[in-house]
C-alpha cells in the first residue's frame, strides 16, 4: 500500500468534511492536477499520516513524490510554487510592488478566514445561551467583514483569468457550513451578507467546487453526530 502511494505523484490524506482538505482538493482540480484521495479515519489514523505529520497528526497532508506538505494554506502556496505552469491561485509575483501588494492582500484575507471562521463556527454549534449569542454576533461580523472585502467583485480575485483565487479557495469550503451556522445561530447569510451569499452560489456553479464540497445537509448531519458525541443537546 505504502509503495503504491509513493509511486503516484500527488496523494492527499484527508477527511471528507474537512474544509481545510477541501481547499486542497479544489485547488488541485482548478489546476488540472490529478491526485489520489485517501480518506483518513480520524479515530484510527494511518501510519502514513502519523509519519507524514508527526508534529500535528492532522489532515490534510499532501504527499508529492512521497514528501509531505502540511497545513492547507501552505499546501495551496506549494501547489502554486511547484506547478508554475498551472492556473495560479495567488497573483503571480513580478518585480512590481503592485503584484507583491496584491499577494499580501490575498494572504492577509486567507489568514483572516483561518483565524476566525472555523473557531467561531465551532462555538456556534457547541455552545448555548449567552456564549452562543456572542458567537453568533461574531459570525455576523465576520461575514460582513468578508462581504466588505469582496465588494462588487465576482470573486475575491487574483486567480488566473478571473477564476477562483487564493482567498476564494480558502473560503469556499466554509460555504457548505453556512446552512449549519444559520440553523445554530438563528440568522440568515442572505440577509446579513447578500453579496457573499451570491458569491457562494456563484462558486457552487464551478465544477471544482461542486465536485468537492459536501451538501450543506450532509454537513449539518455531521454536526448533529458531533453534538451527540460531545453531549451538546
Amino acid at each position, binding site marked *: 500500500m505504502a509503495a503504491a502511494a509513493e509511486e503516484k505523484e500527488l496523494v492527499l490524506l484527508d477527511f471528507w468534511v474537512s474544509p481545510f482538505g477541501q481547499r486542497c482538493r479544489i485547488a488541485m482540480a482548478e489546476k488540472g492536477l490529478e491526485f489520489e484521495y485517501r480518506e483518513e479515519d480520524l479515530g484510527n489514523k494511518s501510519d502514513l499520516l502519523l509519519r507524514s505529520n508527526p*508534529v500535528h497528526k492532522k489532515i490534510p497532508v499532501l504527499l*508529492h513524490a512521497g*514528501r509531505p*506538505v*502540511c*497545513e492547507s494554506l*501552505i*499546501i495551496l*502556496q*506549494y501547489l502554486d*510554487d*511547484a506547478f508554475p505552469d498551472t492556473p495560479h491561485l495567488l497573483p503571480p*509575483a513580478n*518585480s*512590481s*510592488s503592485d*503584484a*507583491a*501588494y496584491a*499577494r*499580501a492582500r490575498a*494572504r*492577509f484575507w486567507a*489568514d*483572516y478566514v483561518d483565524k476566525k471562521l472555523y473557531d467561531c463556527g465551532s462555538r456556534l454549534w457547541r455552545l448555548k445561551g449567552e456564549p452562543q449569542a456572542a458567537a453568533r454576533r461574531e459570525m455576523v461580523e465576520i461575514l460582513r*467583514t468578508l462581504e466588505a472585502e469582496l465588494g462588487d467583485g465576482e470573486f475575491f480575485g487574483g486567480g488566473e483569468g478571473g477564476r477562483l483565487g487564493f482567498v476564494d479557495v480558502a473560503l469556499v469550503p466554509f460555504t457548505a457550513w453556512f446552512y449549519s451556522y444559520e440553523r445554530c445561530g438563528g440568522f440568515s447569510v442572505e440577509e446579513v451578507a447578500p453579496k457573499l451569499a451570491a458569491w457562494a452560489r456563484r462558486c457552487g456553479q464551478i465544477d471544482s467546487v461542486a465536485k468537492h464540497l459536501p451538501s450543506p445537509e450532509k454537513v449539518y448531519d455531521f454536526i448533529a453526530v458531533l453534538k451527540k458525541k460531545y453531549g451538546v443537546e
Partner: protein
Amino acid sequence: MAGDGELKLLGMWTSAFVLRVRFVLNLKSLPYEFVEENLGDKSDLLLASNPVNKTVPVLLHAGRPVNESQVILQYIDEAWPDRSPAVLPSDPYERAVARFWAAYVDDKVRLAWLGILFRSKTEEERAAAVAQADAALETLESAFRECSKGKPFFGGDGIGLVDVVLGGYLGWFTAIKKLIGRRLIDPARTPALAAWEDRFRATEAARGVLPDDADKMLEFRQTALDLGASKKITL
C-alpha cells in the same frame, strides 16, 4: 523602480511580531521610519491602516498598508526581489517547510509565551506554560537540526524566515529568564537551539533592535497586565 517609496513601520519595541520585520528590513538595508505605538491608545493611523485586526506591525509602503507580520515578511521579499538576502528560499518544498515551522512557532511558542508572561495567575499555571514552552522548543531543536543541516541558521548559511520569526521572541525570553531563573532555551535540553540563540543575538540584523533589558521589559509587561486587568486590551 519597484520598491520605491518611503517605508513606515508601526510597532512596539517589545513585540516579537514587530521585531521580525525590523530584522528583515535591517538585513536588506531598507531604511524606514519606526513609529512607536502606545499599547493602550492606538493611533488613528494604525486604526485606519489595519481596521480589521487593529494590531502591529503595520508596514506602510508609500502609504499603502501591509498587515500581519508573516505577510509583511513575504511582501518585503517580493517587493524588493533584488535585495538580498531572501527571507524565503527559492525551492518550493523548502519554502513549504520554512512556512510550516514559522507557523509552528507562532502557534506553540506564542501560546507558551502568552501563558508564561500574561495569562498565568498562579505559579502552577506558569509552570505548566513553561512546560509547554519546553515541549515546543524540543520539537524546534529537531527542526533546527533538520533545517540547518549543520549550518548556523534555520535558513542555512544566512538568516531565513524561521530565524526571524523565532528570533523576535528572544527579547521576551530575556525577561522570562529573569522571571523563572533559567534560560527558556535551555542549553541542557536543547543545545543546538541554545547555540542558535547566542548566534542570532550577535547578528547585524538583531543589533540595535532586539531588546536585552529584562527589567524594562518586565515593566512593559506590568503595563500590559494592568491594561488587561482594566479591560483596555485583551491578553
